């Protein structure tokens, strides 16, 4: 099992955003986490990636506990993530963005930079190649020299994925990868995510667009008010009465 | 491409700066007197006083037709540069004044700048005379033969001050001077002299007069040890506040006041009644023979909004000494002028004698007779201060 989430709880003041959630993500899997707004999906991602510390529970990645590690350490273990509102180094070039994704694999320090050591030169080349590879993977290599903040919204979303891919992670957390994207583009994005899975990345995604989720996910976890209310294949989930009620409300007329 | 513009800009600036070089060539019939001092920033008032004194002397000399050098009537020109009280700026200014304006003498009214200028003047050329307005003894110890220091060394005051205060009020001294370098040096010297005269010191309660808002705290602490005499001093007005605060808190003893504080300004804050028993340098109007005529001339030129004081007067006097020395030397060579300063000082006409001068010490100190005063029954009584060296 690549990632194990066990009894994870997060409280902010009086509010319990994530309440005793457990699930597993096997290697090579696409796992979707769905639920209405405010259900705690993004918070769950924040816990896995170390952005927030969990109040209770444990997170295990490749058999090692990562619950209390700082965010950058978790990333170094092989968990990459994107953010809900597309988060980029928006004043840097697209290429530099992707380079930063690979940055943790390079050990270059100030002295290497000043003395132009062989290591600095080698890593410079490596980073550049890794970055280009990630950009090609995401289909935005032609934009490499543009400033990230100035490229189209859809390309920015691809760049966010490219940064994650450049980190050469084992697990990628995608937080609403297609929010605010038109339906045609959504289809293309679904292909990109599928491509990632085919390349061997394990994926965990939070998404609202059901068409995308149902088409992609191997299995789905449904959160509601911070609690896991269902888990299963897309077919199982769409037939689950608890899920339908959570989404459509108590007055189910349909 | 973008670098091109950047570089173009920087080189344009360099060129612009370079082009100013040739702009001012010296006209042979004027002698430039340089001045670098604080003309902006917190000490600007002080710097302007010095400048006014020099300007007044220069204008008077020119009005009288200047001096004769090499058989030719020569006038003076004062060029002032701001150094914001910073020694490195003073050195840069001195270099500029000497190299660009061909200044023969450069005046500077702060010890840091003077010491730095002395070091620089040893090495660079052309050489110039330094008109040092500071009572820092270290200036005289540099063995620099082109420095003329004007104000009396502060240690000259120790003996007369201690004599008066110890006799009148008692042997216990509290130190409440400002914590500037000058203030600390003063307090240290005074403490040693006091102890040598058989007194005791209750403690050091010094605070920074420039940044302290309310002196009550420091005064309370000092008074708690019941001193008979307190050493106070720093800028005049804060010194007044310290005295006033001590009197308000019931202090009946005496004050020895550092020479940085001037009675006429201290009086703006602390009325004469509160100054009873205070010894300090005499108010400017009683300085010496020339003051009586000087003050009306000064007021006519610069107005009455700023009173003439020791800074104005002594720099005025020093400038006249230098002018006379130039005439005697019949040259603008700094060493030649320096050789005549002593004679010039001794023969200075009474109208220019703000304070009495008795010549020049070997170390370059003008032997100006400073006069102290003690407030006795609401009146300033002169106290003679011996010449130092």
């Amino acid at each position, binding site marked *: 099992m690549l990632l194990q989430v066990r009894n994870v709880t997060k409280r902010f003041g009086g509010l319990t955003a994530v309440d005793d959630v457990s699930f597993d993500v096997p290697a090579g899997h696409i796992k979707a986490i769905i639920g209405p707004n405010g259900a705690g999906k993004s918070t769950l991602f924040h816990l896995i990636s170390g952005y927030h510390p969990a109040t209770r529970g444990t997170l295990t990645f490749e058999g090692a506990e990562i619950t209390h590690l700082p965010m950058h350490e978790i990333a170094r273990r092989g968990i990459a993530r994107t953010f809900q509102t597309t988060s980029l*180094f928006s004043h840097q070039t697209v290429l530099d963005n992707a380079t930063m994704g690979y940055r943790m694999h390079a050990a270059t320090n100030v002295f290497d930079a000043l003395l132009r050591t062989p290591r600095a030169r080698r890593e410079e080349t490596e980073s550049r190649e890794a970055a280009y590879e990630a950009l090609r993977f995401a289909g935005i290599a032609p934009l490499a020299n543009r400033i990230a903040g100035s490229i189209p919204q859809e390309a920015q979303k691809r760049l966010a994925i490219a*940064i994650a891919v450049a980190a050469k992670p084992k697990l990628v957390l995608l937080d609403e990868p297609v929010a605010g994207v038109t339906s045609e583009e959504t289809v293309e994005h679904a292909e990109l995510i599928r491509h990632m899975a085919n390349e061997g990345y394990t994926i965990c995604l939070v998404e609202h667009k059901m068409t995308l989720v149902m088409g992609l996910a191997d299995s789905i976890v449904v959160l509601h008010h911070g609690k896991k209310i269902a888990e299963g294949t897309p077919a199982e989930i769409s037939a689950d009465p608890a899920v339908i009620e959570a989404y459509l409300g108590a007055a189910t007329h349909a | 491409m973008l670098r091109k513009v950047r570089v173009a800009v920087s080189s344009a600036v360099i060129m612009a700066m370079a082009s100013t070089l040739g702009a001012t060539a010296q006209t042979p019939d004027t002698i430039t007197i340089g001045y670098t001092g604080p003309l902006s920033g917190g000490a600007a008032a002080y710097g302007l006083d010095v400048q006014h004194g020099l300007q007044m002397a220069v204008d008077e000399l020119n009005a009288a037709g200047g001096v004769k050098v090499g058989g030719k009537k020569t006038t003076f020109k004062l060029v002032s540069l701001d150094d914001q009280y910073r020694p490195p700026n003073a050195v840069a200014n001195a270099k500029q004044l*000497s190299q*660009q304006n061909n200044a023969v003498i450069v005046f500077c009214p702060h010890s840091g700048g003077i010491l730095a200028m002395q070091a620089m003047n040893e090495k660079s050329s052309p050489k110039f005379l330094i008109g040092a307005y500071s009572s820092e003894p270290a200036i005289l110890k540099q063995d620099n033969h082109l420095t003329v220091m004007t104000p009396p060394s502060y240690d000259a005051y120790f003996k007369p001050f201690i004599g008066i205060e110890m006799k009148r009020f008692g042997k216990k001294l509290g130190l409440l001077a400002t914590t500037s370098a000058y203030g600390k040096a003063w307090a240290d010297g005074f403490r040693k002299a006091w102890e040598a005269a058989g007194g005791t010191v209750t403690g050091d309660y010094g605070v920074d007069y420039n940044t302290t808002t309310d002196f009550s705290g420091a005064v309370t602490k000092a008074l708690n040890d019941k001193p008979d005499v307190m050493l106070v001093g720093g800028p005049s007005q804060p010194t007044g506040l310290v005295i006033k605060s001590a009197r308000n808190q019931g202090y009946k003893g005496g004050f020895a006041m550092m020479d940085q504080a001037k009675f006429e300004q201290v009086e703006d804050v602390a009325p004469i009644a509160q100054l009873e028993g205070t010894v300090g340098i005499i108010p400017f109007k009683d300085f010496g023979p020339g003051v009586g005529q000087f003050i009306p001339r000064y007021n006519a030129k610069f107005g009455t909004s700023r009173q003439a004081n020791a800074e104005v007067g002594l720099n005025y006097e020093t400038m006249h000494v230098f002018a006379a020395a130039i005439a005697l030397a019949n040259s603008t060579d700094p060493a030649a002028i320096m050789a005549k300063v002593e004679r010039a000082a001794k023969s200075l006409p009474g109208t220019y004698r703000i304070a009495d001068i008795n010549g020049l010490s070997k170390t370059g100190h003008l032997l100006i007779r400073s006069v102290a005063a003690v407030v006795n029954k609401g009146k300033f009584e002169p106290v003679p201060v011996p010449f130092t060296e």
Partner: protein
Amino acid sequence: MRRVLWIIAAAVAVAIPFLVPKTFYLQIVAGAYITAIAVYGLNVILGYTGLLNLGHAAFFGIGAYAVALLETKAGWPFWPALLAGCAASVVLGAMVGSVSLRTRGNYFAIFTAAVGVMIAIVFTNWQELTGGNIGIVNIPPPPSIGPLAFDGDVPKYYLVLGALALTILICRLVRHSLVGRTFVAIADNEDLARAAGIDVARVRLTAFMLSTFLAGLAGGMFAMYNGNLGPDQTGLDITFEQLLYLVIGGIGTIAGPLVGTLVLVGISHELQGMQQYRFLIFGPLLVLLVRFFPLGIAGGFSRLTARWAAR
């Protein structure tokens, strides 16, 4: 093309002692170079990582006092003293940085301002060591290396120019390296940098130490060049002045610190008679710049030239 223009600028700088017969002018330019080195240091922390270190001048002071004291009191020659001065500044930078970098934004600025003022108070009050307000005078020049003597305005000018060139080289190399790109990336988006496995605290500390290194270098050169030193070079107002040069020259650019310093020192010198009044212009200018022209001269020109190039 760019390289050619830098070479031209360097050639002009090298030629200045031959173009100008009087050394006071060299002193002004060299003074500007020294300030520019410190401003480059400020640029590393503010321009690259977006943190305003208001105690910057205090680190300049650490470097300067270390050199001055080691030379005058311990009898060290200049070169080891300079190395020690830079090291002292970096070590103190590491100490202050490891604590202050836990704060952000305004807190960081206020924290560093307080540290800076405290250091300046120590310089002023520890008279036995620092000479108080008078400071330290008669700091000896660097010893000769073979026939090369450094006791004179022209050789000293070249030393300072060398230090400036080294500084610009350091900034260029670092800025374009992976390290420098990480600095700006963190300033741009801290959370994403963390998510990419970057140890943000460590990288920030690196930038802070590099910044204080340059401040220390500038301080050491200052002590050497002027031969005297006082606490008034280390106060908050000096940091403010350096900030002014940086903002006008262009925050975050390679040419900005030099251009801003030269332009303002040049203007200040040309306006000698207006010394008192110049901040009546510079103050509002600063406000207008951050509002309308936050990239300063260098940034503004690079934007303009980019527009020309796009045509």
